[in-house]
């Protein structure tokens, strides 16, 4: 069985190479990556430019590779049915599932190769950016410690803090990297007016036993994101720590209280590893998404002719992307406008019920597909854990891919391949 699948995969790869698909995709991706590297503008800093490059390049690679893979996958079975090459294959002792897996495997091998090229390019770009900065400059430190880094994003949980104090608790990750020597605390206030004077702050990091491990006074801006460096030696792997905050009152200060932003919780970015590992994990998640597109393309290609398959699969992707809006606007519990009116409701209850059930169903089916987003996190140096990679592989490749494979096998079994086209 393995030999049959590998044989079909090999034929698929050979077909992709012969049709110049591989070389065209390679040239397109490389020109995109080089184009971004040469033209992209950041916020005027080396770290900003590198972040932009990583974010845009990952996005572009995902889109181009996804589109190309879908195209190739749609044609893999449908064109073979059309030009009757598949007849020669199906008369041999090959199961429908072997055919599907072989085709899919061939396509994702090409995608994997392209992702490896993109990964290599981005790794080089990171090193070039690092070498271009002065190591001890603020820019150099930002590139090294904020971008080319994997940092665990610990979201805090607000607890009762006592008079004049705010308090949060958060869990440290299982591994805390000793380099760089600092973790970064991020927090935002709600400001009623722009450009208010900064407030004097006092932050403390408390261990699980309540002992103070680190404290710092500083100034915090009322607008934008505030950052505070916390030494990593005050954090220990796997423990639950507390953060406390209070305003230091000076004579001249008018502000005696601040409100923390409700939509942007206090976060602590704790270094856990290097950029290379994070890049590999990000690319693997992109690969899982591309693999799902390949599965979709091959399956739809078993039902329709090539142009129709492309149209149907593209429509399905567009519908999936728009589902978010639909689910959001009809989600249960979201107050709709007519609830504010008195008297009879404008929409019959059964329509609402069907709408809600539909929204729930779509949410259940589609939202996991859109859940795995990596480019922003990679660019910000936020860790993408292996658990997320396994989860993405499980969901996108095995669950969704498995369902699509079953559908395709059933279609191929029922379909009369030899009918005139």
């Amino acid at each position, binding site marked *: 069985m393995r030999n049959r699948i590998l044989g079909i995969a090999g034929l698929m790869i050979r077909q992709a190479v012969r049709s110049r698909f591989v070389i065209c995709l390679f040239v397109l991706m490389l020109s995109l990556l080089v184009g971004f590297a040469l033209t992209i*503008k950041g916020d*005027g*800093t080396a770290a900003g430019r590198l972040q932009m490059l990583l974010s845009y390049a990952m996005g572009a690679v995902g889109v181009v590779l996804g589109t190309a893979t879908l195209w190739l996958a749609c044609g893999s079975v449908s064109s073979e049915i059309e030009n009757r090459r598949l007849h020669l294959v199906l008369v041999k002792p090959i199961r429908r599932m072997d055919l599907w897996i072989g085709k899919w495997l061939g396509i994702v091998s090409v995608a994997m190769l392209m992702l490896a090229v993109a990964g290599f390019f981005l790794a080089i770009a990171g090193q070039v950016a690092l070498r271009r900065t002065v190591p001890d400059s603020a820019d150099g430190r930002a590139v090294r410690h904020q971008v080319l880094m994997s940092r665990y994003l610990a979201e805090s949980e607000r607890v009762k803090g006592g008079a004049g104090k705010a308090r949060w608790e958060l869990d440290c990750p299982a591994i805390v990297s000793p380099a760089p020597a600092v973790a970064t605390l991020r927090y*935002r206030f709600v400001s009623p007016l722009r450009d208010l004077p900064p407030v004097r702050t006092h932050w403390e990091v408390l261990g699980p036993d309540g002992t103070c491990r680190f404290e710092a006074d500083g100034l915090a*801006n009322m607008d*934008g*994101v505030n*950052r505070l460096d916390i030494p990593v030696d005050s954090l220990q792997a796997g423990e639950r720590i507390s953060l406390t905050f209070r305003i230091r009152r000076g004579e001249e200060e008018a502000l005696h209280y601040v409100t923390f932003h409700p939509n942007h919780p206090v976060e602590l970015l704790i270094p856990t590893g290097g950029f290379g590992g994070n890049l590999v994990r990000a690319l693997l998640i992109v690969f899982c998404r591309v693999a799902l597109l390949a599965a979709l393309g091959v399956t739809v290609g078993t039902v329709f002719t090539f142009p129709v398959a492309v149209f149907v699969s593209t429509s399905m992707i567009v519908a999936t992307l728009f589902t978010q809006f639909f689910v959001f606007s009809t989600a249960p519990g979201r107050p709709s406008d007519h609830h504010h009116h008195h008297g009879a409701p404008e929409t019959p209850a059964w329509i609402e019920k069907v709408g809600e059930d539909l929204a729930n169903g779509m949410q259940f089916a589609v939202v996991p597909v859109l859940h795995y987003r990596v480019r922003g996190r990679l660019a910000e140096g936020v860790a993408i854990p292996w658990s997320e990679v396994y989860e993405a592989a499980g969901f996108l490749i095995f669950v969704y891919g498995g369902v699509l494979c079953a559908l395709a096998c059933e279609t191929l079994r029922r379909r009369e391949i030899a009918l005139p086209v």
Partner: protein
Amino acid sequence: MKSWRKRTGIPILATAVLLLVVAGVFHAPLLELRQRALPGTEALTDAPPVVVFTTVVLGGFRGVIADALWLRASYLQEEGRYLELVQLADWVTKLEPHTTDVWAFHAWNMAYNVSVMMPVAEDRWRWVQQGIRLLRDEGIRYNPTDPRIYHELGWIFQHKLGGDSDRLHAYYKKQWSDYVAERLGASGRPNYGIFSMEPGLRERIRDEMGLDVGRMQIVDAIYGPLDWRVPQSHAVYWAYRGLEVAGPEGFLSCSRMIYQSMAEMFLWGKMSWDSQGELIMEADKRLLPRVFRAYEETLSRYDDPALDEAYINFLAGATLVMAQQGDTRRSHRCFDRLHARYPTDRTAQGYDAFIAAHKEKK
């Protein structure tokens, strides 16, 4: 027998060539017609390939793409993710290079809205500079004949750098002063004779500050002596450029910018820093005759009663400020001009009564 492709190939090719020739013949008259009907929209001759591509190939779809990018910029800004804004502003403006409002909005957004969200002064200053660069280095290049773009650029100098609305205005003034002093000399007064002797200096000023030395000299002769370390000097320069392109009908906003900036420079345009690095702003009294000139030029050019109000306010204010500073000679000059141009019962009672009335009111 020849195949269909071979039989039809030559006539199709010949038709294509013929159509190309016809299109080429019509091209020049069409361009001329467009230039006459829509001045300022002539095709860019030295635009980068990206701009040529987007403006020609995308056609009407440019607007849709620009809208999508603009929506993304707004969303990111709301989320507090400012990193992409320079890139998005660059793309949006390149998609709509001849729409001055687009340039003005993005420059203002970066210099005003984004900058104040930065907790560190250096970061703030970088965003203010991004706004200036967007207009000065690119916006003007694509809209050289629109006075509004010069006014928008001048406004950042006059208000953001020159005014005190931003909590860190003193920091901006210091940064700008150091930047100019490095290029024009510690006094901020350029020695125009050196420009012809030192090769490359003229180009350096143009590339790094966007200033044309020839025009600087003219502006200095009309409104100076200007200290170019003071942001308002640049506001005057850019407003002057705006008036140049506006032609004989003028552009009130630019004229207003000139007299306002001149008045500000006269009242507090002499900047220095004490030993603790605190900004000290004093009156630059040499500029008084030039301020009169700026106001009176504007009054003679436009028919707007608000301009008289502005001049009255300036003359009355300057009379009192000079009197407070013990400069009775200049105070008298301002008062005399006020009485000569806008006599009232208050001024008819004489200089001493005018000052006394103000002190009493205070």
